[in-house]
């Protein structure tokens, strides 16, 4: 999953990543080639960019890499380039883009290249992460970068100062909410950060935040045959009542208009942050550390423990004239040296099952294993058929976002808001 990280300081260990040895390639040196590499210029990606570029140049003597940073919206940039026939050879991508990019002929299926490459061991990748790279269970449209599961970062200092119990692995949301209320009462701080994205202030519209609640209450957004929207089902209504209550009843989630001048958890105004492993590097880079912090698994809902998962990665463009060279470039991301380098930089959790037994890195966080154990609770975003959009963009996203926004702004009840959203989505599904 790709989310913009609001970071005050640079990521660590660029030098460490640059010292990673290259993966052994076939004995005969490939012909020199220039690869165009489209990627983000963001602190959590920069070390990975350098890793890939350095390895490619080392294994392809005489070859060059032209880095082209994406400006503006990723999907819109690539769509425009695809229309103009100027896509780079290698593209930054993320789980939310896998299906639309594949269907839009922006990325190519890398599975034939992977199958023909004895150095690439697909079976060593965690199946749930590999699933993010497939479209309808097929193909390989992304080389994933990290085992990204939404896990709880918590401000240990704030919890202890408020006399609230520290988050535990077997906690329920009720226990977590009670602790948050204690923190709010004793310190005046909010409990759940909005991550400072998409705008400064609280956030509610990321699918990884609310879909786990729906699963946790036994609900679904759409029927299994993809024909019936279920936003107004009793289970979804109950889930959304409970989710939006974090703002409307308990007032423990960062309000939408509360802008503390930075990401709320990092600036010490929110007790927890539900986010991906890559954020560790941003927190560790703070010198001195503003407070003691650690990580813990997501609390449990009535019907189980669920959390969102996803990852960013890289893909080969459908337009490339150098598919083999592009494959050599991207596959390195899922090699042991690269995954170790990403882990050592606290920029992610290794994607490879063979690295599960590696000794844990020194803290903070001390409970880094929570990222992996929490993976057992990971769920993927709901897919919607047809042209009604997805949980990321389009009508589906707009209707759910508007419904939740109305509830949190207290201009509508959950039932009314989600019934309206359901009706609008159903009308689109009926159009086919």
């Amino acid at each position, binding site marked *: 999953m790709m989310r913009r990280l609001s970071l005050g300081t640079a990521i660590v260990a660029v030098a460490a990543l640059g010292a990673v040895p290259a993966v052994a390639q076939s004995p005969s040196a490939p012909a020199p080639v220039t690869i165009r590499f489209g990627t983000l210029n963001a602190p959590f990606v920069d070390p990975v960019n350098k890793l890939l570029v350095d390895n490619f140049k080392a294994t392809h003597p005489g070859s060059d890499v032209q880095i082209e940073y994406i400006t503006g*919206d990723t*999907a*819109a940039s690539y*769509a*425009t380039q*695809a*229309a103009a026939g100027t896509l780079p050879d290698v593209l930054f991508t993320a789980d939310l883009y896998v299906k639309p990019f594949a269907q*839009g*002929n*922006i990325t190519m299926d890398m599975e034939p290249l992977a199958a023909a490459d004895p150095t690439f061991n697909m079976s060593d990748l965690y199946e749930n992460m590999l699933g993010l790279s497939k479209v309808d269970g097929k193909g390989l449209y992304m080389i994933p970068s990290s085992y990204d599961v939404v896990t709880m970062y918590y401000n240990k200092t704030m919890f202890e100062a408020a006399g609230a119990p520290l988050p535990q692995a077997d906690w329920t949301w009720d226990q977590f909410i009670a602790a948050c209320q204690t923190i709010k009462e004793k310190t005046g701080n909010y409990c759940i950060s909005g991550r400072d994205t*998409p*705008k*400064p*202030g609280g956030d509610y519209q990321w699918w990884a935040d609310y879909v786990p609640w729906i699963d946790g209450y036994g609900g679904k957004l759409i029927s299994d045959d993809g024909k019936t929207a279920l936003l107004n089902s009793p289970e979804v209504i109950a889930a959304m009542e409970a989710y939006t209550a974090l703002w409307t009843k308990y007032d423990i989630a960062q*309000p*939408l*208009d*509360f*802008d*503390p*001048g930075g990401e709320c958890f990092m600036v010490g105004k929110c007790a927890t942050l539900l986010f991906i492993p890559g954020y560790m590097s941003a927190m560790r880079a703070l010198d001195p550390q503003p407070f003691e912090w650690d990580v813990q698994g997501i609390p449990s809902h009535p019907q189980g423990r669920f959390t969102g998962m996803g990852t960013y990665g890289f893909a080969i463009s459908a337009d490339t004239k150098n598919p083999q060279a592009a494959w050599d470039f991207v596959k390195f991301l899922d090699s042991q040296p690269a995954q170790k380098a990403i882990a050592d930089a606290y920029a992610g959790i290794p994607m490879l099952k063979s690295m599960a037994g590696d000794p844990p890195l020194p803290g903070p966080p001390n409970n880094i294993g929570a990222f992996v154990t929490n993976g057992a609770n990971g769920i993927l975003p709901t897919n919607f058929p047809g042209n009604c*959009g997805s949980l990321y*963009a*389009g*009508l589906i996203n*707009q209707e759910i976002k*508007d419904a939740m*926004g*109305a509830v949190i*702004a207290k*201009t509508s009840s959950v039932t009314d808001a989600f019934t309206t959203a359901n009706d*609008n989505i159903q*009308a689109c599904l009926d159009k086919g």
Partner: protein
Amino acid sequence: MATSRPAARRFDRAFWRRTIRGYLFISPVVLGLIIWTFGPMVASLYFSLTDYKIVSPPVFTGLDNFSDLFTHDRLFIQSLWVTVRYTVLFVVLVQLVSLPLAMLLTQKVRGISVFRTLFYLPVVVPVVATALLWRYLMNKDYGPIDAALKFFGLPAVNWLGSPDMALVSLVIISVWGAALFTIIYVAALQHIPEQLHEAARIDGANAWQQFRFVTIPLLTPAIFFCLVTSVILSFQFFIPAFVMTGGGPANSTYVYNLNLYDKAFKWLEMGYASAMAWVLFIIIFIVTLVIFRTQRLWVHNDGGVRG
């Protein structure tokens, strides 16, 4: 005599030389207009009649986009209504603020040019920078405006977080940055002959009567221009809403152009967004036409002749 034919020929050559030279001089502008203005407009008109998702070729669908806009898109009406409310608030407020300000800026006061410069500065500040600055100023928890209100014992205002206040806040920011109209009024006020005010004074008119019966009628061309321009600008409002509120809270600032932007660049529905752009063009055209038609009733051109 035979000299008329050679003279005509010489005249024709000179005429055509001048004509060609003239066209050559204006050709960069004309080419620019064709390539970068009219060309994209024609392309946009075509795309509005297609299902065009950028990554695949456009498929002709006729008027489906326009029909969906009016029958299936609740956000179309909602965003248009937000834009109309913004327009009414902005146009009224900007006229009420600009004209008195212009009158102050035409006073014979030492250093008046410094005041005029200071009031005009917001116009030259980039809009995004302005939006980011005002987002900080209007922060209800840490912003200086609410801090000042609390200092004076007044309740803090949730400027950007309240569905009732957010649009008003954006209007305030826009009016702050609309000194362009003030300058137009300053220029118009300076063009009113002093003799007319003198004559009114001699006839016994007080300050208010001079303003009402001399200044305002002679300002009507400027008011007309500012009215039309402010209406057009307000229908195109986008950047502050995009930067500061994203259309929230609860879509209370979800203006038409934000909706258009989302359809084009988030939903990648370029054909649909093109249709929205043409609908906006037609709306602005009709509103402007209506205002133009009314000018004969209230606009005094030079010489006091109406319309």
